[in-house]
């Protein structure tokens, strides 16, 4: 017999630890190795967490009620785990299906790939840090914050170096913003390519970021903001990611951030420092940020000359396309999901705009012929995700679900057809088209394009 975990307590006789359920189970099914194990474990009731199946179906005549109500559950009748058993908590084991996933075949090497956020299972507007999407160009590292430096140079009076200790002493702000990769939904420019909202829209996350406003740092270094209209942000990873930022337009809301949702950034998201450029595509939110250079012309770095450019029908490339325009998607139900039965459903999704605030979201259940206005969850913040909900009673017939968002600049989310009429089909970036989900009478939802 194992020694009880707690000291100085009375240990009851074993028979007092055998539950009525287990007695009934042994009476019905005999005593085998598994049930002997339960008897042995009876001494150790403090441990809890025994295998599923411990709650045996106690003799209950049909029709009396739900066994989940009528029978005692393991978690009601035994002692649970101690505090700080998981000092940094994890989601329930029953949530383990909702994880970041790669799209098979998207890239050949995982160090230069994407892991998509499981939007189909999220609630509200905030992305849990462990599920924030990842996109790396040369793999991620766990950088040592003690040796991390931020240099500010270029058109500044004093080129300066800051340590994390320096930066975290400065006045900070905390603001909630979405981050979306410019290529989000890019797989679908030509046709339907992937099955679920995780892969169509999962390069999207929304967090409360904390850090020092960019302007505070540039002022501190004496930046020449008359000549200096552009900023180069450079990462400290192997790719040395560089992006040109529009200083004129982004100066006032850009943050040099170290925290995300109340904790330090995760290594996959740029620990210990990243740039936050609200409304602008994710690639400009340079991770592992180590240098900011003020300049008088754009840099034409690799990721603004070879990638993140849009091919137009006339063969020209659009360069420095940065803003993520107004967009929305229904996340529940969405592609690959299965409805169980007819009746009432809350249909929910996300809307966002890199130009400002969401003002309205309409939802259609008939492929865009008729629309109803959804409820917006508050607070509605600028350049942030807004959650929408709408009531729906499904009669069991096939339906095509769509959502359409509008922002406070009057921009209305376009259909894929409207977008293609202007930009053709060979672009990769900035696909903010209305998403269509087809619901079949068997309850299965699939990804389709209308028009």
């Amino acid at each position, binding site marked *: 017999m194992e020694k009880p975990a707690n000291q100085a307590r009375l240990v009851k006789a074993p028979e007092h630890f055998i539950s009525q359920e287990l007695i009934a189970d042994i009476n019905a099914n005999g005593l085998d190795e598994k049930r002997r194990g339960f008897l042995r474990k009876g001494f150790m009731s403090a441990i809890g967490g025994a295998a599923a199946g411990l709650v045996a179906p106690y003799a209950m005549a049909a029709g009396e009620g739900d066994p989940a109500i009528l029978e005692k559950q393991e978690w009601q009748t035994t002692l649970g785990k101690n505090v700080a058993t998981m000092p940094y908590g994890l989601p329930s084991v029953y949530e383990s299906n909702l994880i970041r996933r790669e799209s098979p075949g998207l890239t*050949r090497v995982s160090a230069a790939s994407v892991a998509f956020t499981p939007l189909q299972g999220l609630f509200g507007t905030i992305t849990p840090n462990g599920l924030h999407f990842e996109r790396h160009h040369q793999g991620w590292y766990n950088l040592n914050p003690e040796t991390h430096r931020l240099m500010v140079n270029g058109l500044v009076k004093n080129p300066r170096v800051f340590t994390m200790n*320096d930066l975290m002493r400065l006045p900070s702000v905390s603001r909630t913003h979405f981050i979306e990769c410019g290529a989000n939904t890019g797989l679908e420019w030509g046709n339907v390519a992937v099955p*679920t909202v995780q892969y169509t829209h999962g390069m999207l996350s929304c967090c409360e970021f904390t850090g020092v406003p960019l302007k505070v740092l540039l002022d501190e270094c004496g930046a020449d903001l008359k000549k200096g209209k552009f900023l180069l942000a450079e990462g400290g990873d192997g790719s040395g990611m560089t992006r040109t930022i529009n200083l004129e337009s982004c100066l006032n809301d850009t943050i040099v951030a170290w925290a995300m949702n109340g904790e330090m950034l995760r290594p996959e998201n740029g620990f210990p420092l990243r740039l936050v450029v609200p409304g602008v595509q994710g690639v400009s939110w340079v991770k592992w940020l180590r240098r900011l250079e003020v300049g008088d012309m754009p840099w034409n770095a*690799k990721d603004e000359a070879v990638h993140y450019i849009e091919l137009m029908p006339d063969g020209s*490339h659009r360069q420095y396309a940065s803003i993520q325009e107004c967009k929305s998607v229904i996340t529940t139900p969405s592609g690959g999901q299965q409805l169980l039965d007819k009746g009432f459903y809350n249909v929910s999704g996300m809307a966002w705009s890199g130009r400002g605030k969401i003002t309205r979201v309409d939802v259609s259940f008939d492929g865009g*012929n008729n629309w109803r206005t959804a409820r917006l969850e508050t607070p509605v913040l600028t350049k942030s995700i807004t959650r929408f909900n709408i009531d729906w009673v499904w009669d069991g017939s096939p339906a095509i679900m769509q959502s*359409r968002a509008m922002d406070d600049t009057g921009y209305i989310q376009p259909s894929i057809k409207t977008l293609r009429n202007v930009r053709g089909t060979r672009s990769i970036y900035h696909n903010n088209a209305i998403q269509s989900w087809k619901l079949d*009478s068997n309850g299965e939802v699939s990804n389709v394009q209308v028009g």
Partner: protein
Amino acid sequence: MFKLDKLSLHLGLAALIIITAQSSFAQSGSAKFPGIGRVATPAEVAAWDIDVRPDFKGLPKGSGSVEQGQVIWEAKCASCHGTFGESNEIFTPIAGGTTKDDVKTGRVASLKDMKQPQRTTLMKVPTVSTLWDYIYRAMPWNAPRSLTPDDTYAVVAFILSLGEIVPDDFVLSNTNIAEVKMPNRNGMTTKHGFWNVKDKPDVNGNACMHNCVPFVQIGSTLPDFARNAHENIAEQNRMYGPYRGADTTKPPIKALPGTSGAGLAHAADTHSSAAKGPAALFKNENCSACHAPNAKLVGPSIADIAKKYEGQSGAVDKLMAKVKAGGAGVWGSIPMPPQAQLSDEDRKTLVVWVLSGGK
């Protein structure tokens, strides 16, 4: 004794200079945030400020020939990008799709037709500074910043020769780089509404509420054979609640499952089925960054390694030593970096798994 004194005097002076320098850094900050940050030294700025702009600000002196570039290319670049920059195995091809006419016009004609299967780097990149900057800062992919400025000039020269932008005997240098005429130098536009929030968007939707599209036509769906291409969607959704994942290992069910969800094939518990083992270890330890199951990436495929060592006695010990210390030469010139972070147990698990062909 005297010598020693002199040395300590020197050390003391040096320390004094450092202290003075540091305090001058601190003092040169603004009065607003005293004690925060310090002045960057010229050497520090030079070490980090390596970017090269389209006007070639930041370009270091140096030169390299096409011929030298080819040697470096074959040793350090070809395994990912192909001998002629044509490979589409790991990243999109670097060369191809451009003509001598494009070099004259500054517009790549193949971007307009649909015949070119891939957009290559040379079809897209408008400025040669971009190639120089990126290769110098981030290449080779698994050993960034290991090229000298001269190496970089040589590699850029070789790439330019692949696109017939410069002749085979060209020597590229900081003095002649501005004369290079890129085939797509006029191919970029900034006329769009995506740079400044004040600018006007090119597309807008409409807010029609009723009888907007009387005829709804589905233009695109996923083909049936792709049903399970992203693995079983049932295991990518919550096991409870109103919206479950469809079991994509099977054809769609014929009727609604009913409120209990009974009859759904995926109703079985999946929460504890997360597979661990050598395959997960292989990915998590970054081995998969260079080794794929069946195709050559940066390094040989698992299948090729298994084939090479099949039936060889002592193969496990030999490879375990190699994984620990690193190596080069067996599969080409790209070295395998040492994997000293692995425990002996993990190393053995990985090697045995690779030798079994990843099964």
